[in-house]
């Protein structure tokens, strides 16, 4: 883990920096292709991050609603909700794929 990825916030709480990417319908709905996030260290799985984003409300609440099919990848590998995320990771959320 890089030293600069873990920082102490103003409150002395451990924070975890990750890059989050959004693709296709999610990217359009959320109005952004990527975001740099500084997460509380208790958000350490894909499922936890999804809940965290849903709690922003509005478009985030509907994009990450429990009944919406959302897939994820950690460092460019497909990942399940229980997959761990750590400082410096590249996390991506997207709809089920439709290539081929």
């Amino acid at each position, binding site marked *: 883990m890089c030293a600069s990825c873990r920082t102490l916030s103003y409150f002395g709480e451990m924070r975890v920096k990750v890059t989050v990417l959004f693709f296709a319908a999610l990217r359009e709905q959320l109005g952004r292709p990527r975001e740099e996030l500084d997460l509380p260290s208790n958000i350490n799985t894909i499922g936890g991050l999804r809940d965290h984003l849903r709690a922003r409300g509005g478009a985030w609440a509907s994009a990450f609603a429990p009944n919406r099919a959302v897939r994820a990848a950690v460092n460019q590998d497909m990942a399940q909700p229980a997959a761990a995320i750590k400082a410096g990771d590249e996390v991506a959320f997207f709809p089920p*794929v*439709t*290539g081929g």
Partner: protein
Amino acid sequence: MKVAVQREDFDLGAEVRAISKDSKVGAVASFVGLVRDVRMTLEHYPGMTENAIRGIVDQAASRWQVMDCTVIHRYGELQPNDQIVLVAVASAHRGDAFAACEFIMDYLKTQAPFWKKEHRAGGAAWVEAKAADDQAAGRWKS
């Protein structure tokens, strides 16, 4: 083994010839996916896409005799009848070539990060994933 994710079109004949040069190759099976009757935009996840396809090709090569293989997938703006995807597998015998080609295509449909957006007269819409595609990939697990 060649994996390419590109905007440009491809030449099926040239790609098949390129993996047919070894005199031990006795069979090449190829699949070309085409755009049907609608204009579309294909988005992908640069970096992950190539790795995901390579992982699928490696799995195929561990299950069947694959002497060479080419996978090309296009992205960007595509018109009706355009070629979207090519999978070509060279092997000593047809059984391995057919099976590996179909396996790669089935897994690509459910594992490679591409998304199609169709542009129709009434507006644009993202294509929904099909349960049949998951079932097609799932049958290889037995």
